[in-house]
């Protein structure tokens, strides 16, 4: 295991509620790489992303970042990634600008000046909404704002769970641009999606290939029998 840059997974296995979602999953994603997680509903994309973010423990296998196992220094690893999940972390009463400002300050890297914020908003076409309370945002606007968090602090590794959900054509274009710039800057992107995205030469990882022999449906019943 020489100091291979980027993220490297070997023989990852994950069990959710007593059911094994996938096993023997491995990949390697270096700087500038984009890895697309595909697979049917319930195949474990979101779970895998949380696992990769170090929020959940794998059942088997190991995960290394910049050649070092992430468990060795979890905090340092987590400080070098962004996770944008299904929930967007918006608070109804706070305005768009305030939300972004809070994210910037918590990320604690960029100075909490307006610039970073406005830049991030502009990058996703939200300039006009700075003073709108999040409660009033439409679904697509919410998604855009959630994605704007990626630009609040420079982090090499981006983990995105279905980033394109609910975005209109214009927003899809903006997103593609943001992702391209991140990769050009040597960043790594791992995302799950069901709809085709404009990601030049991205590797695709189909979780269906790592599904354990026993059909999940069958085990599912076994699991819930106990309850």
């Amino acid at each position, binding site marked *: 295991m020489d100091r291979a840059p980027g993220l490297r997974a070997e023989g990852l296995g994950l069990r959710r509620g007593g059911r094994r979602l996938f096993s023997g999953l491995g990949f390697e994603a270096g700087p500038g790489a984009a890895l697309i997680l595909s697979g049917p509903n319930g195949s474990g994309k979101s779970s895998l992303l949380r696992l990769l973010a170090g929020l959940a423990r794998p059942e088997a296998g190991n995960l290394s970042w910049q050649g070092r196992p992430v468990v060795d220094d979890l905090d340092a690893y*987590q400080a070098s990634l962004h996770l944008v999940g299904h929930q967007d972390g918006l608070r109804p009463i706070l305005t768009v600008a305030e939300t972004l400002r809070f994210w910037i300050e918590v990320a604690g890297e960029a100075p909490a000046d307006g610039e970073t914020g406005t830049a991030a908003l502009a990058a996703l076409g939200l300039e006009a909404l700075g003073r709108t309370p999040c409660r009033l945002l439409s679904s697509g606007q919410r998604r855009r704002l959630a994605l704007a968090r990626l630009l609040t602090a420079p982090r090499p590794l981006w983990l995105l769970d279905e980033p394109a959900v609910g975005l209109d054509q214009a927003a899809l274009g903006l997103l593609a641009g943001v992702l391209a710039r991140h990769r050009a800057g040597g960043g790594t992107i791992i995302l799950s999606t069901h709809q085709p995205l404009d990601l030049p030469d991205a590797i695709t990882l189909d979780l269906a290939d790592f599904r354990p022999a026993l059909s999940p449906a069958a085990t599912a019943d076994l699991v819930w029998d106990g309850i």
Partner: protein
Amino acid sequence: MRGLIALIRRDLALALRQGGDAAIAVLFFVLAAMLFAFGIGPEPGELSRVASGIIWVTALLAALLGLDRLFQADWEDGTLDILALSPIPLEMVVLAKAAAHWLLAGLPLLLATPLVGLLLHLDTASLPALIAAMALGTPSLSLIGTVGAALTLGARRGGVLVSLLVLPLEIPVLIFGTAAVSAILSDRAAATPFLLLGAILAGALALGPWAAAAALRQALE
């Protein structure tokens, strides 16, 4: 550090924007005290005898309300993920939450106590002791409450569950709090209850954030 301040500021902003949270907490405090005044009946004598006890209990309950919301919202909307992945250690996050809670649910009650004391015919001699005791006691309430909130995270009906968990832990504060007042009145050695309150606070400060952070990690997995 700036992260911490940002956290506290955000919680305060949220609360205050939400229609003067502090003001409303105080109003609840006053209202509840009033309720007791009714329940117990008009005779001033009766009231003043039980006043300090009632004030403590009401303060405790007021500090209890909305406790379940402390992490719930952040957890459901994913903010907690963001915080867990941020450079700020989770223990610090908890501490910030507790501080914000005290500023919103503890401090205002402290300030309202004289008024409530008037409502309940509390004899003025004991007022200073009561306030001092509350100043020492309420932070512990916030800290203990934080632990309860973290533990009940994900139990949807947290509102009642959290009080169930927290109340027993907070009973000692109540006991020594009232003891402090009565000690002053019957000018016995009043130091002890205050010392004990201080000890509880120290313990809560040492244990609370750690326990709450652990609970939060569980909730996130």
